[in-house]
C-alpha cells in the first residue's frame, strides 16, 4: 500500500482538479460582462493561511464551501451549516467566525486562518493542538478544529485566560461528546505550553 | 395580469387555495373607473340641451321612511369601513385594521339580518322583487316603474348576493381568529379555509365594483334626487310623475 495515496489525499486531489477546471471555465464566463455597480466579480484572491489563493467564488458561496470544496481545506468541518454548532469556526483577522455563515466575498481583504494553517513550517503542532493531544481532549473529533480555532483566537487576544474566560470564549462551539471539560483542560495546558 | 387564485403549500406540502390574487383589486378598480368615466362621457354626449328636469318644488311625498334611511346609511358606513379596513393592508397602509374590520362586519351582519326580517314581514317586499316583465323596462321608454326601477332592483339584488357572500365567508373567517367570544381553534382544514378566503376576496372585489357604481349613480345629476330622498326622505310629485308609475306605487304625502 502506497502510504502517499491515502483516501484523504485522493479526495483532495479530486477536489483540487475539479476546482482548477471550474476556475478556468468560469474565467471566461465571469469576465467581460456588464454588471451594475456594486456587483461582485467571481474571480477573487483570498488570503488563506498566509497564502494568497486565486479562486473562482460564486456570489452566494459561503467561506466554508470555498475552503472545503475549492481549496481542499477539509479541516474546516460543516456540522449544522446554520451557525448553531461551531464546527466550521475559522479565524478572520484573528476573530473566530462561523465559516458556514459568512460569504467568501466578504473577506477578500482579510486574513483567513484554518486549522491547517496552525502547524508550524517544521511540522510542530500549534500549542493548542499539542495541548489538546496531551489532554486527549477530542473524542470523536468532529468539533475539534472549531474548538481549536476558538481557543487560538482566545489566546491571541488574552494570553492568560482563566478557566471561566476560556469557557465563555469557547461557548460558541458545541461538543456532542461532551468533552467540554477536556477542552478547557487543553486550553489551560496550552497557556502553560506557550508559557 | 397575473393569476386569479393564489395557492400555497399546507403543512404537508400539498397545494391548497390561499385566496384571491389581490392584483385583481387594481384590475377591478381600474376597470370600474374606466367604465364609469366612459358612461359619464356617453351620457354627456347624449344629453339633450336644456332638458327639463323634474323640479324638486311642490308637494312632497315620502320615498324612504326614517328607519329605512338609518338602515341604509349604517349599512353603507359599515360596508365602506369594511372595504377600507380590508383593502388598507393590501395596498400597504399600516393600520390596526382587524378589530375595526370584524366589529364593522358584526354590525353589518346584524343590520342585514334585521333588514331581511323587516323587509320580509313589515315592508312592501314585493316592491323590490325583480319580475320577468321588469326586464323589458329598460327597452321601453313608455313603461314606468313602481317604487324601484329595473336598475335599482338589479343593483339591490346584486349587492344582496355579494353582501351575503361576504358575510357568510366573513363569519367563517371570524371564527378562525381570537375574539372576545371564543379562542380560535384552527378547526377548519386549510383547503376549506382557503376556499373561504377566495370567496371572501372575490365578493370583496365585486363589492368594490358595486359600491363604486352605486356611488357614481347616486351622484349623477339626473339621479341625485334619489340621494336626497335617502337623506331627507322625500321626493317631489314632479319627480314622482317623471320617473314612476303612480298606478304601481302610490306613496303617502310627506308631513
Amino acid at each position, binding site marked *: 500500500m502506497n502510504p502517499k495515496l491515502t483516501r484523504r489525499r485522493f479526495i483532495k486531489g479530486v477536489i483540487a482538479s475539479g476546482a482548477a477546471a471550474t476556475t478556468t471555465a468560469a474565467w471566461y464566463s465571469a469576465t467581460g460582462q456588464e454588471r451594475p455597480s456594486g456587483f*461582485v466579480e467571481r474571480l477573487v484572491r483570498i488570503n488563506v493561511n498566509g497564502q494568497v489563493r486565486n479562486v473562482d467564488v460564486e456570489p452566494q458561496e459561503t467561506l466554508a464551501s470555498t475552503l472545503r470544496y475549492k481549496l481542499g481545506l477539509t479541516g474546516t468541518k460543516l456540522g449544522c451549516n446554520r451557525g448553531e454548532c461551531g464546527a466550521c469556526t475559522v479565524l478572520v483577522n484573528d476573530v473566530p467566525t462561523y465559516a458556514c455563515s*459568512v460569504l467568501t466575498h466578504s473577506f477578500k481583504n482579510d486574513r483567513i486562518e484554518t486549522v491547517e494553517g496552525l502547524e508550524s513550517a517544521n511540522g510542530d503542532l500549534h500549542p493548542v493542538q499539542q495541548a489538546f493531544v496531551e489532554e486527549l481532549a477530542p473524542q470523536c473529533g468532529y468539533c475539534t478544529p472549531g474548538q481549536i480555532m476558538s481557543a487560538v483566537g482566545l489566546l491571541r487576544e488574552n494570553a492568560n485566560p482563566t478557566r471561566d474566560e476560556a469557557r465563555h470564549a469557547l461557548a*460558541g462551539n458545541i461538543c456532542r461528546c461532551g468533552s467540554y471539560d477536556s477542552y478547557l483542560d487543553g486550553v489551560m495546558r496550552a497557556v502553560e505550553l506557550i508559557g | 395580469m397575473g393569476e386569479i387564485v393564489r395557492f400555497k403549500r399546507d*403543512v404537508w406540502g400539498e397545494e391548497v387555495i390561499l385566496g384571491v390574487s389581490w392584483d385583481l383589486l387594481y384590475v377591478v378598480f381600474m376597470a370600474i373607473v374606466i367604465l364609469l368615466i366612459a358612461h359619464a362621457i356617453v351620457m354627456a354626449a347624449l344629453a339633450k340641451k336644456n332638458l327639463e328636469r323634474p323640479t324638486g318644488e311642490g308637494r312632497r311625498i315620502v320615498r324612504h321612511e326614517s328607519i329605512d334611511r338609518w338602515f341604509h346609511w349604517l349599512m353603507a358606513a359599515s360596508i365602506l369601513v369594511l372595504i377600507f379596513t380590508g383593502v388598507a393592508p393590501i395596498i400597504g397602509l399600516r393600520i390596526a385594521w382587524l378589530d375595526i374590520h370584524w366589529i364593522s362586519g358584526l354590525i353589518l351582519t346584524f343590520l342585514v339580518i334585521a333588514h331581511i326580517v323587516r323587509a320580509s314581514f313589515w315592508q312592501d317586499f314585493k316592491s323590490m322583487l325583480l319580475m320577468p316583465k321588469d326586464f323589458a323596462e329598460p327597452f321601453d321608454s313608455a313603461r314606468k316603474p313602481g317604487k324601484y326601477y329595473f336598475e335599482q332592483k338589479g343593483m339591490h339584488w346584486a349587492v344582496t348576493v355579494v353582501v351575503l357572500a361576504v358575510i357568510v365567508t366573513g363569519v367563517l373567517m371570524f371564527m378562525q381568529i381570537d375574539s372576545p367570544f371564543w379562542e380560535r*381553534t384552527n378547526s377548519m382544514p386549510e383547503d376549506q379555509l382557503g376556499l373561504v378566503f377566495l370567496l371572501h376576496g372575490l365578493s370583496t372585489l365585486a363589492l368594490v365594483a358595486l359600491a363604486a357604481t352605486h356611488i357614481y349613480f347616486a351622484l349623477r345629476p339626473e339621479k341625485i334626487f334619489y340621494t336626497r330622498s335617502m337623506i331627507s326622505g322625500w321626493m317631489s310629485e314632479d319627480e314622482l310623475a317623471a320617473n314612476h308609475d303612480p298606478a304601481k306605487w302610490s306613496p303617502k304625502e310627506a308631513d
Partner: protein
Amino acid sequence: MVATSHDVMPDIELYQPADEATALDLASRLGNEGWLLGGGQDTYGWLKDRNKNPSAMIELTQIDAWKGITETVDGIEIGAVTTLTDIARDPLIQSRFGLLAEAAGIVASPQIRNVGTLGGNLIQDTRCWYYRRGLDCYRAGGNICYADSPEGLNREHALFGASRCVAVTPSDTAPALVALDATMVISSTSGQREIPAQDFFVGPDRDILNMTVLNEGEILTAVRIPNTWANAEFYFEKVADRNVWDFALVNVAAAFRTSGENIEDARIVCGAVECVPRRLQDVEAAIRGRSRSDSTANAVADMATAGARPLNYNNFKVPLMQNLVKRAIRG
C-alpha cells in the same frame, strides 16, 4: 411549505456597494427582491432552507460610513453594521450605556456576535418555529396561524398584542435601545427619516408581514442614543433555555434615575413577550418617587403583566416577566 434542508446556498446575486449612495440606489432598485445583508447570521438559514427567496443580496458591511461608534453633541451614534462584539466591548458604550453593552454581549454566541451587526439584531425576523419552518402562516402571507391553536406549540410566543400572529421579537438589543430612548436613522434614495426606537417596531395588528416600519428600499443606517439616560442605573437580564445561542424566553432592559433613595424616572422594557419590545409605562409611572426595594417591586409586579393573554403553553412567561421586572426594580 415544509422546509427542505439544503446545505448549499441557492443561486443568488450579491452586491457589495462600497458607498452609501450605491447601496441606497440598489436597495430602491431591487425592492423586495433585494435582501439587505448585515452580518447575515439570520440570513443564510432562510436562504439555505429556501424559505425566503430574494434574487439578490446587498451587503452593507463594506460601507464604512455605517460602521463604528461616534460621539455626537448630545449622545452617541452607532452605525447599523457595527458588530455586536464591537458594541459590547466599546469603552464609551460600556461606561455610558452599559445596558446596551450588556445586551449586545449576551446575544447568541461569540462567533455570531463577532459577525452579527446591531442593525441585523434589531430587524431580524421572529423565531416562531412554525414560521421558521417555512410554513405559509399569516406572517408568511398565508391565512392561518399554527402556533395559536389548542394544540399549537406556543411556549415561546406572545403574551400581549397578538393579532392573528402570536410571534415575539427575538432581539436582545431592541429592548435596551427602547429603554435608552434611542432613535433609528432610516435612509433611502428619497432622504433620511428618524423614528424613535419605540415606534420602529410594528406588531401584527398593523403589519403582519414585517416587524419594523422599514419600507421597501429603506435601510436602517444608524442608531442614535441621546444622553438622556447616560450613566443611569441599568438592569438587563435575559432568560433563555440555554446560556448560549438561545433566544430570550423573556428579557428585561431597564434604566433608572434616582435621587437619594427614590426613583425619579425609569424606563422598563421587556422583550419576547410581544411582537414589539414592550415598554411598561404603567410600572414606570407607579414607581416614580418610590425606592428601589422589594416592597416597590412587589407592589407593581401584577401591573407589569396586566392585560397579558397567555396561550396554552406560555403561562410561565407571566411569572417570569413579573419576576424580571421585580429584579430590575430591586436592582
